[in-house]
Structures are given as C-alpha cells and as structure tokens.
C-alpha cells in the first residue's frame, strides 16, 4: 500500500478527506450532554435580573458555549433539563454563557418544576424542538383577569421563553405582580409534549383560571334574585335605582381628543341602601315585587367561640358538703342510673 502510485496518494488524500468528514460526521452525532450544579438566577453575582427569573432561559458557563460551538447545533439552542433523581424533565433555551464553571443558573419556577434544590445536579442535553402552532394556558389565579390587555402582556412575557412544556407552571412578571400560568396543551404534540415558541406564530387559548368557577357562581348567586325575573324589567327597577342616585354630584368627562366619554356609569343595585333618598317604588296596590338585589346574610362571627380565647376556668368547692343537695342527689340517683345501665 505504501509503495503505491500517485493515484494511491491521491487516494490517500481522498481517504483523509473522508476520514475528516467522518470525524465531522461523528461530531454531528455527538450530543451536548453535561451535568451541572444548578442554582437559582437570584444567585447570579451582580444586578438583579427579573427578566431571567421570569423567563424560560438559563445561564450556562462559557465552556458550554465552547463545546456547543464545536458541535453542529441548530439554532436557537434548546435544551432538555432533567432531574435524574426525581425523573422530572422540562425544556428551555439559553440566554448567556456567563455562569461560573460547573454551574447553571435556572429560573426559580424551573427549579420548582424539576424539584431541585440549589446545588443539585441537573442534566442538560442539547435538543431539537418543533415549532409550536398552538398552546392552551391556564392562569392559576383569578387576578390574571384583572390585566386588561392579556395579549400584549403575554407577547411581552413570552419573549423571555424559548419553549413551553405541557403541564409546566411558569411565572411571568407584570406590574410588580407574579402570575403563575400552567400549560394545558401544546400543538404539535409529540411524545415530549414541548414546542418551541421562538419566532413563531402561536395561537394562544385560555382555560378559565382556577377559582374562576367559584367566583362566577358567587356572582351568579348574587344576581340570581335580580336578573332572573320578568317583573324587574317590567317595572324598570334598575332605572328606578339610578333615579335615586340623581341627587349625587354629576359631571361629564372629556377626552383629550375632544370626544365625550359616553359611558353610562354602571350601578351596583346593592348600593341602593347607601343612597340617602331612594326613588319611590310606585306600583298599583296588590303588586308584590321580590326582585330586589340579593344580599346574602352575613355569617355570624364566632368570636365568642374562639378556641384561642383564654378563659378562666375552675370548679367551685366548699369545705362542707351541702346536706340539702346531697339529699336530693341521692334521691334522684336511686332510680335513674339503673335505668340507664339496663
């Protein structure tokens, strides 16, 4: 072989090339798969960075970048995070490579999801994730409904995320308030139940927040007496209640663009009792109306039965047993106890 012709050397060169290629090829197959000790992002030295804590991206050490850059990874870089001890998995992206060697900084919600303690080992695996087309989210509390523009808030908040994993509960920060949101469903849904949300058009659907049902029920019950009936509209009860308010100070608002604020102020029917002079309810004799706003009875406060309340206790005793009470006791007890025992 060695005493071969030029061709053979040529051949050699080719084989070198192929060797190189195969080495390169091997590199493609080689995965980024490392274990790091994890810490919450709050422990990053320097200024606090809320967008990291309320996002879906982690901070890896510079060596990871070096390693990754040598591998042929697809961008954006996405990772599996796995707590092998608890067999829990989630997914995310990477934000920066500024962590100390051997460490990864995770957002707090991610650590909770993986049930990791600071300093625990987490396995980080580079991976490919399909682009998502649809997610269904469920806010974990009703105060999410207080946000007026959900779309804008979510668009802004999800910018900090690369992936959404089904049944994860992630956190977003808006207006100094943390909202927990659960991922109910993702499409396309493969075995890993995860989608990438980087540079994609996502259809977002919402489930009613937890606790919404109860509050709805409560509202319904509040209105049940006022809304259901037909007489309430026949006699124009709402209008009458509003009339009683007419002695309040009134004014109209004007917007900067000169348009009138044409909004009829909504009236809470229960406020009728706060009115100084409610409107008369003039109905023909023999008319009975029950559609007043329903007011639930206030639950009696058991302040008197408070178990923590300290009470002096003790039985009164006298040195000399009263003859009279003894006598009656004896009389009564002669018959009764036998009956009870029998």
């Amino acid at each position, binding site marked *: 072989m060695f005493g071969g012709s030029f061709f053979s050397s040529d051949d050699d060169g080719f084989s070198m090339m192929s060797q190189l290629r195969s080495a390169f090829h091997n590199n493609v197959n080689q995965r980024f798969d490392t274990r790091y000790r994890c810490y919450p992002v709050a422990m990053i030295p320097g200024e606090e960075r809320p967008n990291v804590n309320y996002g879906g991206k982690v901070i890896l050490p510079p060596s990871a970048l070096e390693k990754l850059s040598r591998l042929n990874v697809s961008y954006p870089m996405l990772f599996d995070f796995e707590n092998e001890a608890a067999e829990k998995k989630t997914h995310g992206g990477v934000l920066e490579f500024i962590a100390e060697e051997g460490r990864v900084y995770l957002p707090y919600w991610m650590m909770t999801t993986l049930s990791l303690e600071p300093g625990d080992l987490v396995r980080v695996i580079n991976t490919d994730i399909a682009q998502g087309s649809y997610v269904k989210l469920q806010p974990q509390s009703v105060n999410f409904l207080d946000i007026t523009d959900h779309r804008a808030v979510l668009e802004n908040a999800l910018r900090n995320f690369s992936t959404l994993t089904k049944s994860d509960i992630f956190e977003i920060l808006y207006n100094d308030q943390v909202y927990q949101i659960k991922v109910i469903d993702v499409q396309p849904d493969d075995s890993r139940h995860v989608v990438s949300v980087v540079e994609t058009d996502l259809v977002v659907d919402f489930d009613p927040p937890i606790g919404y049902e109860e509050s709805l*029920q409560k509202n*319904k*019950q509040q209105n*049940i*007496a*006022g809304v*259901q*009936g*037909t*007489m*309430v509209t*026949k006699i124009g*009860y709402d209008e*009458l*209640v509003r009339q*009683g308010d007419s002695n309040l100070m009134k004014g109209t608002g004007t917007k900067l663009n000169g348009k009138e604020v044409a909004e009829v102020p909504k009236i809470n029917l229960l406020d*009728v*009792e706060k*009115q*100084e*002079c*409610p*409107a*008369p*309810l*003039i*109905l*023909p*004799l*023999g*008319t*009975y*109306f*029950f*559609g*007043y706003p*329903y*007011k*639930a*009875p*206030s639950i009696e406060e058991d302040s008197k039965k408070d178990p923590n309340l300290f009470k002096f206790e003790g039985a009164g005793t006298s040195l000399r047993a009263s003859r009279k009470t003894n006598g009656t006791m004896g009389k009564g007890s002669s018959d009764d106890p036998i009956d009870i025992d029998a």
Partner: protein
Amino acid sequence: MILRFRSKRGMARAEFQPTDTLAMLSAKILSDILKNDYSPENVSLCQNESDQGVIFSNLNDQTLQDAGLTHGQMLYLRLGTPNSDIASSNNEPALTVTGAPKQVSTPDVSEKKPSMPVIQDPIDDSLEKEDGLIRRSMTSLCRHGPKGMCDYCSPLEPYDESYRQENKIKHLSFHAYLRKINSNVNKYASSQSFIPPLEEPSFTVKEKCPSGHPPWPAGICTKCQPSTVMLNLQPFRVIDHIEFASPGIVDSFLNKWRQSGFQRIGYTYGHFEQYNNVPLGIKGVIEAIYEPPQVSEADGVTLEEWADEALVEQVATACGLRRIGIIFTDLTDDGSNSGKVLCKRHSDSYFLSSLEVYNSANFQTKFKNPCKWSRSGYFGSKFVTSVISGNLNGEIEVMSYQVSNIGTALYQADLIQPSVDPDRMLVKKEDQTRYVPDVLYRYTDKYGKQVSENAKPAFPVSFLLVTLTDGFPEKPDPLFSNNDTSIITTLESTDETGRLRQLAKLFDHNAIANGSLSNFSVLLAIAKLSILGKDDLAALASYATAPTEENEKNLNSRESYQTLLAILYSSL
C-alpha cells in the same frame, strides 16, 4: 226696616219691607247671610236665645208686620248640620280616589258616643271575660303552707314585664295591653264612668277645628295639626301566633312554586283561638289558603280583579272560617340542587319590604278590628301577612307579620310611600292636599346611645312591623282532610258537563266518608254551581268535614241538596 240676626256664624243684618212674608225672609237669609250653606230644614228662626224657634221650611206666608217684627229687632238663627257635611257623609265612597289611600277623617268623639254598641269578634269577648292572671306555683322563698299565698307566688298581671322578658315574648298580647292601659284610665270595678282607653293614631289634619280659623290648607293651629309621629316598637300585637292546622296546607300551596318556579299569593282562611303560651293571647289557625286570580312571575306576583270574592267569603263563612290574612311565597332556588332556597329575608336585609308593608297597611285598613275599648269603635286589625321564604339555613319557612297601628295610620293619612330599597319607607313630601307632620324614629347608634332621627326622607321599615310567631300544632286536627287546590284548575279546564261529572264522582257515599268533599276548593266548586243556598252550604260543609249520620240526615232533608245530587248524577 232692618232686622239683625245672630247665629254661631256671627252677626248679620238685612233690610226688609214690612210687607215681606216670613218665607221671603227665610229665603233671603239662606242665600245672603248663610250663603246657601244650609238647607231650610236645618235652620230655625228664634225670637230669643233660649227657645227652639221655627224651622225655616215651616215658615208660612205671614208678613213681618203681622209677625210683630219691628225695625232693628234682634233675631236668632239656630243652625244644624251644614250642607257640605251632609253631602260628604252621603257621597263618601264616591269621593275616594282609586289607588290613593282614603283619607279617613278622625271620628268626632262627641258624635260617636251614643252610637250603636260595637260588635266585637267572639274571641275578643271571651278573652275579656278571663282574668288572664299568670298563676305561679310556690317558690323556695315562700314561708307559708300550701294554701297560703305571698308576694312570691301570687298571680301576676297578664302584662307583667318581667314575665314577658323571661319567656321571650316579643310583644304583649292585645288584651294584656288593654288591661294595662285600662287599669290606668278606668277603675276596673266601677262601670260608672267609662273613658275609652284606646285611641287609634291619626295623622291627618283635624277637620272642623274649634278655634275658628279657615280650614287647612288656608290655616292651621296646634289644635288641628297632627302631632309629631314617633316611630317605635309597638308594645302589643293584636294576633300573637299563626298556626297552620296541618303542614299539608302550606305544602299544597308550595306545589305551584315547585312546578313553575313562579311566586304565588293567597288569602288565608281560618279562625281565631286563644293562644295559651302568651297571657290572653290570640292565635290565628289557618285551615285553608285560597289563591285569588293573580299574575305570577319569578320575581313578583300581582293580584288581579277578584270577581268571586263574595262567593269565597260565603263558602268560608259556611265552613265557619274567616279571612285571616294574606300569604305569599318569595322563594328562589339557591342553585345547589339540594332543595335549598336563598335566604333573602334576614336581619341584614329586610323582613318585609316597604312595598309589602304598604300593601299590608292597605289590607289592614280594609279589615279593621272592631273594638269597644277604642274611641272610634275600631282598633288595629287582625289581618296577618305571612311570607314563605328561606331561613338562614336555606330551609323554607313561614314568617308572619303585622303592620303597626302607626304604620296603618301613616298609610291612611297618605304620608308614606314604598321605595326601591326594600328596607326603607319614604315619607311623602308636603303639598296642598297633605300636611306632613314631623316623623321621628329612635335607635341606638354606634356609640350605644339612644338617638332620635328625623325620618324624612326615608326610615327603616322595621319600625312599622310587628312580628308574630308561627307554628304547626303538635297534634294536627285540620278542618279539611284534603288541601289539594289543583282540583280548581282541573275543573276550570273542562266544560260544564265534564265539570259536573268530576264533581259527581266525589259524591259517592264511600268517597265522602274518606273525605273527598273535605276540601275548601271542592266546596268552592260546588258553591259555584249556585244550586245550594247559604244554610244548605253550611250543612254541606259540616257534612263534608265531619261525615256523621246526623249531618247527613240534616243535609238529605234539604231540597236544594237533592236537586244538586240529581243534577250531578244525571251527568254520569
């Protein structure tokens, strides 16, 4: 010649010719001096103050000269009732404006005295005969034998305050209250001088004010203006307790709501009995509920024209019953599917809404309680308003109320108006037809202090309410064994022959023994055929409720009953 006339309207003079007749003179007096306020029958002409004189209509054609009247002579006019009063007493019903409450004038005390004796309800008469003393057994403090008596064990008066509070009786019974008031006013033993101890409150301006100023609204004085209205808890209640003769009465009334979810209203019929849990108490025992024509809605109910009122009353009288009050449902399912209802009426909201109080005041004005101890011959009302609604545990419960006498008086004087806030009643504004006195109410404020507050423009409705207790008897013995009201709708939906056939089935001898006729609705349906007379109806009622041989014999001997049977059997 000039003649002078003196009357209670003052002095007047008029010029006459000596040749004028007395008739001409009377005509001139009536038109010029008395301004046609009096008819000739009510004015008499007298020579001096003391004599009775001659009534104008009896004056003859004698000339003044012949009658011996001279220039400048003083004559006296004795005036009777003016025309306006006669007219008003005759046309009183015509004057009332429908919708607005009738302005009831205060009866003149002096006129009322020699009036007819007041016929009271039998229950009132029987309670008056009782001493009502609260007997007590011997206590440990007594130091006397079993036949002795001391301060600790002597009977208490029926109006004893400590007894009332110990037994948690919210109001004195009416008769106990009457004893209390009467013992202050009259000597119980001597019937020599009697002053009626009770007076119904009235808040209208007194007509015919004795101080001689023009009548209101042109003038008013302290004598004729109504006094300040002080709203407070009425110490007594006319009826103490409402008892449903059997739970089935309420149950069948509730069935309509259960089926439709719409509210129902009905008049309660029953009788009054002595109520032993309260000294000299009265309880109303409800035997039947009649549902008059009405428009039901989920959040209200409207009474409609009731054409059969007289007939229903007649049947009730035949059964020995009278109208006790009104009952209505205010039920809303709480949506939990556990059969519970919303508790709408509680201490934080209201017990009886201002509208209901207004309606009840109207009924209580209509159904006054005759009472010989009152100046007007009436005092309060026995009309009771019952509400079926949810209690704090969401269970269906009956609660009964009456409007206080002040409440009805405020209604009669047209001073109050219901408001959209169920817990507050409005005081109407003063105008040309209505004088509104000061209305005050007293309550304990947040500092625990008693405060009087002006009730204008609105005040809490609870100041007009009197609460009654409710219950069912331990051993029900209802008059009617069947309370099913659905028979009325079944009968009304069929034609004449079908109706007769339906009724004929009930007249089977065995069926009657089982109480097929023992139902207010059935008796009403029979009465509607208008075959039976009043007495016959009573005989049928007693047979239906107690099918004994004696009652049957009594009924069979009646011709109209035989006619009824013949008609019914021919339909079969």
